[in-house]
């Protein structure tokens, strides 16, 4: 099918990136225009595609990309409910963030570079979403990793940013090796990498992966662990906040980290029961751990980063519990409110002249009312208060957990409590309590081009729950039995958690000038402040491995050199020894000659 529409959606952002890289380096305004224009047009085109899809049109596009042996690999775009939803999120939320960046990044010397990278990122992300096979997905998957590398390290003169970029890329790559191996195993065993055909093969032959089924599933899941920053590879995401705030919103809230969740939804059919169980527990564990850590962070972006981790944990848990639509639902609403929270936080940071410590802020409600109200809307959506969008999606996941696993349900409820607690802590300290620095006194509301996007996202965060994303997706997956009574139970518990969290936060932080918790719970808070010491432990481990490997390599080379020296030495010694015989003295030669004759005669006569 040669419909140009799908290709346009994918390649417009790439075109923008190429144009900016080659021709628009010195033209900030034009580069922003091209970049924003590309993503907005992509969004409009995807709306058109959605209309076609709802009208019953079957869309796909592909061409033959590579022939290996007797096998071929296609480059295929795939449009179904799942990918369309994701395309809309990426281009829609992406467009809003692009527009916001026009204001936020104003005056930065790397302005065109920034927009070039953003466009490239949008392209890569769309590539992941639209991929019709594993191979193609992996290609774009890695490109997403590179784009995040470029954007996190955007302020490259700051060593911390360069470190964070490297860390993000390498941590992701670690997970990707699992993904890579998993893909190769799938290709070897199923003989194809096409999603639909792998699924057909598995249906035809349920024993396809045999004993390796769990392993294959978990290897594929490794990719998601890296990209969606699940335990134990979660360490890169908080550091990635070194990038400019719109980057945090785009990559580390709304889209890139969503790629992992999207991927495991896309290939959901490949996971068997044990693999799903492990996935669910990893998700639950991540949600819990990140929620705990967020309670004791002081950097406004880091709090949001850990809350992202925690919410991603929910989504992964939902997939593990066998319900991808619920995960995608939460992914969608989360994209709205987390992008909103990050952009609002960016607005705060912008107003505070790049201060990020919440204890240096205060009373910003008066100085930045628009930012405050939109932030509040995002926060309430994140906490899952009815009727904000987060309520519906979180409730769906909690109901699911309630039905499948009581332990995970308890974890989910506790995390909901934590979420409310740290978000109210943030709001109280930043927007209400007395200001603690000059910067807070001089804070100013952000320009319109930054505030309008906030309103758009706030509207989506408030009403996003009513669209029935889950129902839209459900036909693609096996229909799940509805259990309305559990919804009520889950909602009840959820509300209790919300109330408890809010009350605790008020009790502790209303009018607080500093954090009272560390004094009361020294040991626990230390543990949380240091993020359970993951970074330190990993650094130690890496140093140890690196050092021992390097030492081993050096030792090996040294031994080999010794062996070669020995060979060399033997040859040289032999030569020198023989040289002694060459005296140039005729008498010596005669003597030796005579001795030789004597020896020969001796042997000839006596034997």
């Amino acid at each position, binding site marked *: 099918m040669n419909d140009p529409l799908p290709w346009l959606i994918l390649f417009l952002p790439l075109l923008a990136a190429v144009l900016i890289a080659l021709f628009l380096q010195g033209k900030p305004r034009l580069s922003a225009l091209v970049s924003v224009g590309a993503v907005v047009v992509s969004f409009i085109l995807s709306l058109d595609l959605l209309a076609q899809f709802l009208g019953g049109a079957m869309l796909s596009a592909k061409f033959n990309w590579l022939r290996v042996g007797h096998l071929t690999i296609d480059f295929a775009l795939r449009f179904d409910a799942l990918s369309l939803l994701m395309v809309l999120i990426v281009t829609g939320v992406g467009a809003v963030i692009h527009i916001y960046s026009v204001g936020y990044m104003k005056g930065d010397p790397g302005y065109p570079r920034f927009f070039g990278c953003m466009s490239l990122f949008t392209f890569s992300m769309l590539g992941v979403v639209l991929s019709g096979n594993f191979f193609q997905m992996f290609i774009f998957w890695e490109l997403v990793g590179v784009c995040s590398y470029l954007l996190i390290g955007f302020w490259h*003169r700051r060593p911390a940013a360069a470190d964070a970029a490297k860390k993000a890329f*390498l941590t992701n790559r670690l997970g990707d090796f699992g993904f890579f191996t998993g893909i190769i195993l799938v290709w070897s065993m199923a003989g194809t990498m096409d999603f639909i055909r792998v699924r057909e093969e598995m249906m035809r032959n349920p024993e396809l992966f045999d004993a390796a089924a769990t392993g294959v599933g978990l290897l594929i899941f490794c990719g998601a662990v890296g990209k969606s920053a699940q335990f134990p590879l979660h360490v890169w995401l908080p550091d990635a906040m070194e990038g400019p705030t719109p980057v945090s919103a785009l990559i580390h809230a709304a889209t890139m980290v969503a790629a992992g969740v999207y991927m495991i939804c896309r290939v959901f059919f490949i996971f068997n029961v044990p693999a799903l169980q492990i996935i669910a527990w990893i998700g639950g564990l991540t949600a819990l751990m990140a929620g705990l850590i967020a309670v004791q962070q002081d950097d406004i972006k880091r709090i949001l980063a850990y809350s992202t981790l925690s919410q991603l944990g929910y989504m992964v848990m939902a997939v593990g519990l066998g319900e991808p639509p619920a995960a995608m639902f939460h992914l969608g609403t989360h994209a709205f409110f987390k992008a909103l929270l990050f952009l609002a936080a960016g607005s705060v940071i912008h107003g505070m002249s790049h201060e990020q410590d919440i204890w240096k802020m205060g009373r910003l409600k008066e100085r930045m009312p628009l930012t405050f109200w939109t932030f509040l809307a995002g926060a309430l959506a994140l906490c899952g208060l009815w009727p904000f969008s987060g309520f519906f999606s979180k409730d769906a996941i909690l109901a699911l957990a309630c039905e499948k696993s009581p332990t995970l349900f308890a974890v989910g409820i506790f995390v909901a409590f934590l979420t409310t607690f740290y978000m109210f802590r943030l709001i109280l300290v930043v927007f209400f309590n007395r200001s603690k620095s000059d910067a807070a006194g001089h804070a100013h509301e952000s320009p319109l081009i930054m505030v309008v996007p906030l309103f758009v996202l706030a509207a989506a965060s408030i009403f996003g729950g009513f669209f029935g994303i889950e129902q839209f997706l459900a036909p693609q997956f096996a229909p799940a039995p509805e259990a309305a009574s559990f919804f009520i139970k889950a909602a009840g518990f959820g509300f209790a958690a919300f109330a408890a969290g809010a009350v605790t936060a008020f009790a502790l932080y209303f009018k607080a000038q500093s954090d009272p918790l560390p004094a009361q719970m020294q040991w626990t808070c230390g543990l949380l402040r240091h993020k359970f010491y993951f970074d330190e432990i990993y650094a130690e481990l890496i140093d140890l491995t690196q050092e021992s490997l390097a030492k081993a390599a050096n030792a090996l080379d040294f031994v080999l050199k010794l062996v070669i020296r020995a060979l060399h030495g033997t040859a040289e010694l032999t030569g020198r020894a023989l040289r002694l015989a060459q005296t140039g003295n005729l008498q010596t030669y005669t003597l030796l000659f005579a001795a030789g004759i004597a020896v020969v005669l001796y042997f000839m006569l006596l034997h």
Partner: protein
Amino acid sequence: MNTIPILSILTVIPLAGGGAALLASGQSKTSRSIAFGASLLSLAVAAAAWAMFDSGRGGAQYVERLAWAPSLGIEYHLGVDGLGLLMVLLSALLAPFAMLASWEIGPNRNLYFALILFLEAGLFGTFTALNFFHWFIYWEMGLIPAFFLIKLWGGPRRTRAANQFLIYTLAGSVAMLLAFLALYAATGLFDFEELARLARNGGLDSALFAKLGGSFFKSRETLATVVFFGVFLGFAVKAPLMPFHTWLPSAYTEAPAGTSMLLTGAMSKMGVYGLLRILLPLFPGQMRAMQTPLLCLAVATIVFSAAAALAQRDLKRMVAYSSINHVGYCLLGIFAVVRITGDAGTGSADRAAALNGVMLQMFNHGLTAAALFYFVGLIEMRGGGLRGLDDFGGLRKVAPVFCGLMGITLFASLGLPGLNGFVGEFLIFKGVLPLAGWAAAASTLGLLITAIFLLTILQRVFSGPLPSRWSGWKDLTSGERLTLAPVMALMLLLGTCPQILMRVANPAALALSKLF
């Protein structure tokens, strides 16, 4: 089939060009232009051969056969299949690139450029000859110019490095020569294709034993294995395979940038090429018997060279070790295809994938590694001889284009999808994982370490604060940009459309995979 002896022409052009460049002594600019023109001309011929290549069939094309000394089994026999053609094109691409990298090289410029051309002729000859006799001449012919290029224009420790390089490779060559003389004594054949046919029928081992067996070599297997090792050693040193690699870091490091580019880009491929063209078809049984130790060595090559690169503090040495690492994936792929798996059908698909991957990797690594050495050469030139990892920093601010292009090259080297390095590595792993899972799994460690040290280079050299002494650092000049433009374009093109190479590689890979 075709009347124009295109492969002979290809080899003669650099030889004649080199001679002319030498004769124009005293006028270094003229001789440089002659040399560069000759290299461009051979590139054009190689491109023509590429364009006319019939990718529908395996086996050698552009065959030329002339009786030379029939009584001795010596024949002038040329021909290229997809593998040979890939290597010819790679050498033809790298020679002008390497010349541009050494454009302003110091004294005796005409000799330098003539030697590069002789080296190129040696490469062409090696990749096209199908009879051992003149193949071996070319094989050695590549060595001598390389020795002088290192010895005369190299860094401060050049003499030692050049001697080490020469003696080491020569030792390998001698072993190979002896082995081939044994083969000749047993069969009276020097022709690769005929030897391979004999080997396929199982006649090679028995012929060897019938002729040379006796009191010393008690069994057929021992004798064949000894001969196998002789040939193997020659290739293992050249590629190199650990533990035969110790000559490489100093040779690559001491050689001038242009020479390093040719050494790593094309000469290291001679070893891999030999393994594919000669060792696999002639000694499949021995390779199969040795598979486990060989695979272990390949894995060690991959992992240890990556770790060694991580431990280096000299950019050039890092790139040299990373080169060993990348060639290691080729070796891994080759050693894995001899394994027998239970399922014949998928086994042959995996073999084809691995061999395709090996060929792609050979070409793409040649391109990327040469570009990396080019960049390191530029850094060294601008840094007044400094090339330590910690000598620089923040250069991105003053040299954004430099940083961008070198960044692309580094990412290509670490196998980023969308750039040229990825597809080859992917296919190698795709083939090796089902054939020898443990080896593939262990080798992924090498991939990870590679990513670490390549990103470390990018970070240490280009990010962070800019030291004041480098504030006058020049970004790429327009000449340098022009030099790099085709290379960069190729990296992107081959990354996005690998089918361009696969078209030629696939028939050759399929033919090779049928050996097993």
